[in-house]
């Protein structure tokens, strides 16, 4: 296994180019500060959706509580950067937020992941609600009024950096033997267990990694939007993330990325009509489930489509 394969170099160049182009457009002023918010949302949504996809799409554990982990990351990071207002403090906040989210994820995951399907969904939903109510009542988080004036350290560089890290880490995890174990749980839990896979261990592992990156996403959210209140991270937020994952395809990392971009653009265009946006959202969910339940990409990645064409050419 060499790290410097042609494919890896291409991916690296692609990432650098994307960063440089957007950075250039921001500095020249073609992307206004209004559109920068959309870009920030895209990055955060990519982090959230890809991490949820690991839990729901790849491991097959239906979670409706992803916003709960996000809120933990957001609050922990916000509290830390409000004390230590520096880039080091910001990075420390992200790490701390992500770690606390992971710990909570593991603590909640061990008992609840014994549940299956809709029961798990409801249990995770309940968990996110409990987290929200706790933040609503804690003194340190300033209750329902929320925290404001959080120093803004997250910028395009950091948002992009963490989005790329998330996508690469989860992508590599899925291709590792642990990741394959997770996928086997999705395909058939009983069969996986009888093949000697410790299903509980891998389910909790997927849940913990998902929670970690959800914490990162939340921390970036806190630092970019410098305002937090518990109701941002309600049931609706979890659904928002789920919609991205489902639209992109349960079990497709690139699908989540593409869907996050598409939905953020849709949201920006429909900014003025919140209700219509939500109605469209809802219709989109139902229509996708009826006509294309596997989402845009299914379990395929974006490069699989190109591979297929090549093979086809060779056959001819």
């Amino acid at each position, binding site marked *: 296994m060499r790290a410097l394969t042609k494919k890896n170099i291409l991916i690296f160049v692609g990432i650098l180019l994307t960063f440089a182009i957007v950075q250039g457009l921001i500095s020249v002023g073609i992307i206004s500060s209004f559109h920068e918010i959309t870009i920030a949302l895209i990055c955060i949504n990519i982090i959230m959706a890809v991490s949820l996809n690991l839990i729901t799409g790849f491991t097959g554990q239906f979670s409706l509580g992803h916003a709960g982990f996000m809120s933990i990351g957001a609050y922990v990071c916000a509290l830390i950067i409000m004390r230590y207002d520096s880039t080091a403090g910001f990075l420390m906040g992200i790490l701390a937020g992500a770690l606390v989210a992971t710990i909570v994820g593991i603590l909640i995951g061990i008992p*609840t992941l014994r549940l299956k399907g809709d029961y798990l969904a409801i249990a995770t939903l309940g968990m996110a*609600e409990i987290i929200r109510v706790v933040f609503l009542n804690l003194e340190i988080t300033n209750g329902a009024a929320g925290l404001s004036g959080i120093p803004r350290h997250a910028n395009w560089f950091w948002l992009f950096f963490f989005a790329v890290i998330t996508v690469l880490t989860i992508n590599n995890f899925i291709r590792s033997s642990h990741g394959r174990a997770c996928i086997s749980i999705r395909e058939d839990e009983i069969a996986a267990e009888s093949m000697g896979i410790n299903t509980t261990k891998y389910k909790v592992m997927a849940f913990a990694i998902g929670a970690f990156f959800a914490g990162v996403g939340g921390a970036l959210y806190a630092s970019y939007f410098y305002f937090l209140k518990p109701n941002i991270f309600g049931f609706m937020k979890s*659904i928002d993330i789920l919609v991205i994952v489902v639209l992109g395809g*349960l079990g497709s990392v690139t699908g989540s990325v593409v869907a996050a971009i598409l939905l953020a653009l849709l949201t920006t265009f429909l900014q003025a009509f919140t209700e219509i946006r939500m109605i469209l959202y*809802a219709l989109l969910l139902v229509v996708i*489930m009826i006509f294309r339940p596997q989402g845009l990409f299914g379990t395929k990645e974006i490069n699989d489509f190109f591979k297929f064409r090549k093979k086809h050419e060779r056959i001819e």
Partner: protein
Amino acid sequence: MEQFLQQVVNGISLGSIYALIALGYTMVYGIIKLINFAHGDVYMIGAYIGFAAITYAKLGFFPALLISMILCAILGVVIERIAYKPLRNSTRIAVLITAIGVSLFLEYVMMFFVGAEVRSYPNVLSNYTLHLHGVVINMQQIYIIVTAIALMVLLQFIVHKTKTGKAMRAVSIDQDAAQLMGINADSTISYTFAIGSAFAGAAGVLVGIYYNSIDPLMGIMPGLKAFVAAVFGGIGSIPGAMIGGLGIGIMETLVSGYGNSMYRDAFVFLFLILILILKPTGLMGKNIREKV
């Protein structure tokens, strides 16, 4: 002691409402194994229909309740036919996501037409209150409890004494076998949705009268709590849903009465997680063994 009894009375009235909603959840879950997330929103629409009937059509309590129940039953069947029926054979996650989609759709369509603001419900009942050894029971509570009991008796009658009820029980035990015996599973499922939604509509009108305020997002929380009640009682079991609803209602009022009302919702969900872990079949659920 008086305060405790007062809380229990309040809890029973709230719990009867939860029980009415929980019945719909449990019946639908029993028959097609779907957590109908849109159920809480049918309840919200029921409340608005009742509001319209009382305010604009100047109807009394019972006609409003009846209209709301009928229209909600129709709505429930329409939802089932359009959104859930095409997904009869797809994965559980797909159907659950569809249910969430339908729920969002109902909420925001209502918000689009009636606005997001909270409306106050007209008072159609007299302000008479009953004093029993220091416990105050008001007219609304009496109406709620009596209506809920009447509807539950009616449901027991439908399920156990009529042909439709027999078909419903048969389909929920084994859909394929029921179809082989000549039962039309599709129409039985529609009947189940109709009855469940009618109950949700009734609960909507009752809650509007009890709390005096309605808004398009009012269905989310009671919907989730009624689901907790259904799980507590044992999902799929009709008496379980009634007991579970009352239990959750009483628990909630006791927590807000003696503890911190801010933690009320958290407590209900904590309770849910505990039941799911300790006794996932609930109080009256049947234990089904998993087969490979």
